[in-house]
């Protein structure tokens, strides 16, 4: 074998290795979005399915994750660019040095009727009012979660010290069994479990803890790290515009919306058919963020000086 043949073979091997191992370069307009699989992200699903991102030159990759902690971790570690979050999470994140800003809104109050969430008391428990919960055990999906914070707010509104109610963490699918077995006296639950528990006579509703929230208060939104937004303003604006367009499309094309909901959440057809379309809104007002900051602060969940302006993203056009 000649030396030229050896070099040629080495060069070919090296080129093959380079091609095989090279990861495709991420194009400037590729977006990784992490979301908790639920109907509140409907605008995102519809925007993807109706090519509203594509026509703005955005290639969006949607990844469902289990919970809010994973959303924030993904954003901080740059595994994702935009995440789906609720206000208490980003407020607490900011209080601990994680700077997330709101790209655009997702949904806001008032919630669609009839109620799909509430506090259910165990059948036979004789609980009729917030006062009856003192000393009782109440199941909630997650301690210090959105629903736990709102339940505590409802108790305070009804002049009950939330500290006198024992909240325990219970997964939604397990809540019915635990309530039936008498392990919990009440549960903060949402659909499809909420109505199923009522229909099966396991519990009865006595507290709509979301009813008194003022109209316009955001429920959730799409957020991104401040540092990422500073370098990708145009992409963020395109994303926002696509979400706004999707919201308009949903209002005029409910069938498309339900098809996207079924596809992305994998819910059964019967559930999708009767699911309530959330109150979608891409805008977010600083005043409504102040409402959240004050609420989270009043429950002792933050210690620092977090302000609503900290979360506002304004593109420099």
């Amino acid at each position: 074998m000649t030396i030229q043949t050896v070099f040629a073979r080495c060069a070919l091997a090296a080129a093959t290795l380079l091609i095989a191992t090279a990861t495709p370069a991420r194009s400037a307009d590729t977006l990784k979005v992490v979301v908790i699989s639920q109907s509140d992200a409907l605008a995102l699903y519809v925007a993807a399915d109706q090519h509203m991102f594509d026509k703005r030159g955005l290639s969006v990759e949607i990844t469902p994750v289990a919970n809010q902690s994973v959303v924030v971790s993904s954003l901080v570690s740059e595994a994702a660019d935009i995440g789906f979050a609720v206000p208490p999470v980003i407020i607490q994140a900011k209080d601990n040095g994680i700077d997330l800003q709101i790209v655009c809104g997702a949904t806001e109050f008032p919630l669609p009727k009839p109620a799909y969430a509430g506090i259910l008391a165990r059948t036979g428990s004789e609980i009729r009012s917030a006062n009856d919960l003192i000393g009782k055990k109440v199941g909630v999906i997650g301690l210090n979660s959105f629903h736990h914070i709102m339940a505590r707010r409802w108790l305070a509104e009804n002049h009950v010290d939330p500290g006198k109610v024992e909240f325990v963490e219970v997964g939604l699918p397990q809540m019915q069994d635990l309530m039936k077995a008498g392990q919990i006296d009440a549960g903060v639950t949402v659909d499809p479990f909420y109505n199923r528990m009522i229909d099966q006579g396991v519990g009865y509703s006595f507290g709509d803890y979301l009813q008194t929230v003022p109209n316009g208060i955001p429920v959730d939104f799409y957020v991104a790290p401040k540092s990422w937004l500073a370098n990708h303003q145009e992409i963020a604006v395109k994303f926002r515009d696509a979400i706004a367009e999707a919201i308009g499309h949903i209002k005029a094309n409910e069938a498309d919306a339900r098809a996207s909901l079924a596809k992305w959440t994998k819910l059964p057809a019967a559930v999708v058919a009767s699911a309530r379309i959330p109150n979608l809104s891409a805008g977010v007002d600083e005043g409504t963020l102040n409402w959240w900051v004050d609420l989270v602060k009043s429950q002792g969940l933050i210690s620092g000086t977090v302000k609503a302006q900290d979360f506002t993203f304004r593109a420099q056009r």
Partner: protein
Amino acid sequence: MKAVRSLWIVPSIAVAVAFVLLWKYAVDARMVSPVFLPSPERTWAALQHGFAAGALQLKFLHTLERMFYGWICASIFGIAIGALIGSSSTIRSYLQPSLELLRPLPASAVIPIAIAFFGLSDGMVLATICFGALWPMLLATIHGFSSVEPRLYELSEALGMKRTAVVFKIVLPSALPDILAGMRLGMTVSLILTVVGEMLASRDGLGQWILLAGRSFRSPDLFAGLVLLAALGLSSSLLLIGLERWLLRWRTVH
């Protein structure tokens, strides 16, 4: 000789200090985001703040209480069942296969069953700790009982000792080193399961403190909880070593 043995503590402290310095270096060099890995100074500040506010003492005591009661419960069951199996070949043939079936089950996997029986309560946590922590004691007791010097049995026969006297005066003292070693392992398992139980059953303690701190991105508080757990594990282990030395002081050191 004792003075020389005491000097060995110096290198072990030096290693611990080296770990802390390495930790500080990792944070200062931004090898890991300070959001996820706080510096030793912030962790210390979180510990001080937690104790000053009164929150951490209570949670520490709750965790200590559950760990201790769970461990005691596991020790009683583990040693009793181990003694039964170790002292009777008939009982061993009846019980041991079933116990071997149960032993590999992860204690955290039986938590849903414990919840069904005991609800979301301290009873559930104690039952889980008892189930998970009894195995080291049980196996060590069986081994201890089966390792008794046969001549001691011959001696007991010659002296006409009753069976209970044989167990309490010969077998148990002989098996004590193994039993105590098993109890030390059981203590570690107890601490782990206490933390897991507190997280899953929403019981007030260091486990829940760590879980909620993680969810709220309060990494200094999370690490403060971890430091306290490490201190609890170390101090309980040292106490047991001291107890072991005192109980076995009759053994000749060769």
